[in-house]
């Protein structure tokens, strides 16, 4: 039971002023403030990073990798996505961003939008052949995957067992470069430029307990300043001509709805933001999403361009992606037959099955759990039900639960 979950956030308690902003935004009510300091209930956290974004004291720090290079590897490869390109407005072309990454110390740059198209094709085949219960739920957003595992364990079987584009892109890059360069894969470091802390966990502790092809993650926010400097100083004739040939600059899945759009005829819906995702998961659980084959879900509003480690306003980034699509076209770059072949070999599938990770019930013994549930409801009835937060819990209901779980005492309520 006592499985240790890795979370990509460091809580710097010396900086914490106990202002409870994080506690109020946490979508799974995983945070408490005790003796003026924040505390995380590990098993409730789904790594969305909303708390880090909300903290005015910067006390919650996403554990991304530092920009400095490690001597362990010979080559450093950046895994870039349209989310990154979308951060630079209309005047800086994605090609320039790629060149900029090379200037600031990446030996190679690999784009994930191609893998997005490949995986869309693979998911098409999967949906076509699937005849189990529906609708299937996308699994590229690690926070959504964890939300399902934790809060909707019964729906875990609906998560698509298909790997995320970033993993496929990393694998392809590692295999190709190790052959081209004649070095072992261990000498190539793949760094994902991440829009969110959730993807860091997906790299360090994949939800299906497989392994990741990615070696580290640097936050887009951290890479932004040096990269912006580099691209500002670049002249047009300094852009490597090969970049234009190698890259497609498709939209990838950077914004909400792109995954759905790239798919074939199946009927899908796209939903973003954890509160809406929760609502849709509730609907699925009640069997009320009839006629829908799959659900594209991202924890961040608007898709990954809304990630907490991005820099630009999500709506502006969205407009940048759209104009990038107009400029660079949306032509297909993957060979369908090749995808079919690799699909049959199992290339696109997760290494292992995603398993539920249900929250601990009020008690392991159901009789005791029922007793505690009644006790909790009785305590809640006595509380003022104003969710003031002074007890250190986000809501009166969460506080009542903390009491029956032995995490708090009734005296902590200042109104009683």
């Amino acid at each position: 039971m006592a499985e240790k979950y890795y979370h990509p956030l460091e809580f710097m308690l010396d900086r914490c002023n106990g202002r409870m902003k994080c506690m109020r935004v946490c979508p799974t009510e995983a945070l408490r403030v005790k003796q003026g300091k924040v505390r995380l209930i590990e098993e409730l956290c789904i790594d969305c990073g909303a708390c880090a974004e909300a903290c005015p004291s910067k006390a919650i720090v996403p554990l991304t990798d530092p920009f400095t290079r490690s001597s362990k590897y010979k080559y450093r490869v950046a895994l870039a996505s349209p989310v990154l390109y979308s951060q630079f407005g209309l005047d800086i072309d994605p090609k320039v961003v790629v060149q900029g990454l090379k200037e600031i110390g990446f030996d190679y740059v690999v784009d994930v939008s191609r893998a997005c198209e490949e995986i869309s094709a693979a998911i098409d085949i999967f949906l076509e052949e699937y005849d189990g219960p529906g609708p299937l739920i996308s699994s590229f957003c690690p926070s959504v995957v964890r939300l399902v595992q934790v809060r909707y364990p019964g729906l875990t079987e609906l998560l698509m067992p298909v790997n995320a584009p970033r993993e496929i892109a990393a694998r392809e890059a590692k295999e190709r470069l190790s052959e081209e360069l004649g070095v072992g894969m261990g000498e190539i470091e793949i760094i994902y430029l991440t829009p969110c802390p959730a993807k860091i966990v997906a790299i360090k502790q994949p939800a299906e307990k497989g392994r990741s092809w990615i070696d580290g993650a640097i936050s887009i926010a951290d890479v932004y300043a040096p990269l912006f400097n580099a691209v500002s100083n670049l002249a047009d004739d300094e852009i490597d001509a090969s970049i234009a040939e190698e890259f497609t600059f498709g939209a990838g899945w950077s914004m909400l709805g792109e995954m759905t759009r790239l798919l074939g005829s199946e009927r899908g819906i796209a939903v973003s933001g954890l509160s809406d995702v929760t609502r849709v998961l509730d609907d699925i659980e009640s069997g009320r999403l009839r006629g829908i084959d799959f659900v594209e879900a991202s924890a961040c509003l608007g898709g990954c361009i809304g990630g907490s480690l991005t820099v630009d306003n999500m709506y502006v980034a969205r407009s940048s992606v759209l104009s990038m699509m107009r400029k660079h076209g949306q032509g297909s770059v993957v060979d369908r037959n090749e995808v079919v072949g690799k699909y049959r070999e199992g290339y696109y599938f997760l290494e292992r099955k995603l398993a539920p990770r249900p929250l601990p019930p009020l008690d392991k013994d159901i009789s005791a759990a029922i007793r505690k549930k009644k006790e909790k409801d009785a305590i809640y009835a006595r509380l003022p039900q104003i969710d003031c937060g002074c007890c250190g819990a986000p809501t009166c209901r969460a506080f009542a639960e903390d009491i029956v779980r032995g995490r708090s005492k009734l005296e902590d309520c200042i109104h009683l």
Partner: protein
Amino acid sequence: MSDEVLFFQEFSITGGDFSSAGSVSTEIKSILKEIGFHPSVIRRAAIACYEAEMNVTMYAERGVVRLSATPAAIRIQFEDEGQGIADIELAMQEGYSTATPEMREIGFGAGMGLPNIKKNSDEFEITSEVGRGTKLDIVIKA
């Protein structure tokens, strides 16, 4: 079964209120999760409960829902005041529905509700009186 390990809660449903339709089944589901019933048991209860709640919303004036849970089983009773069902055997048939075109427009009226409730319960009992209302009593074993 002693009272101590019996969880009981009552809810109400307002007929025609489509904006909050489904909220009772969402609440029941979260109670069952807290107590820690198996995910598959919860899933069955959620589906059955949602369908029954929608039927009250669509075809009745008002209704009450009584949830009782023990370690061994979950019992959910729906009792409504409304038009009632004249021919239960017919209503139980897959695809049979008296839903209005408006209801169909918003995705209801596939005629699969009652059959699905039955499929997901271990015990199922429905009685009805035309012009008065309908009673549905289901048990899902844990």
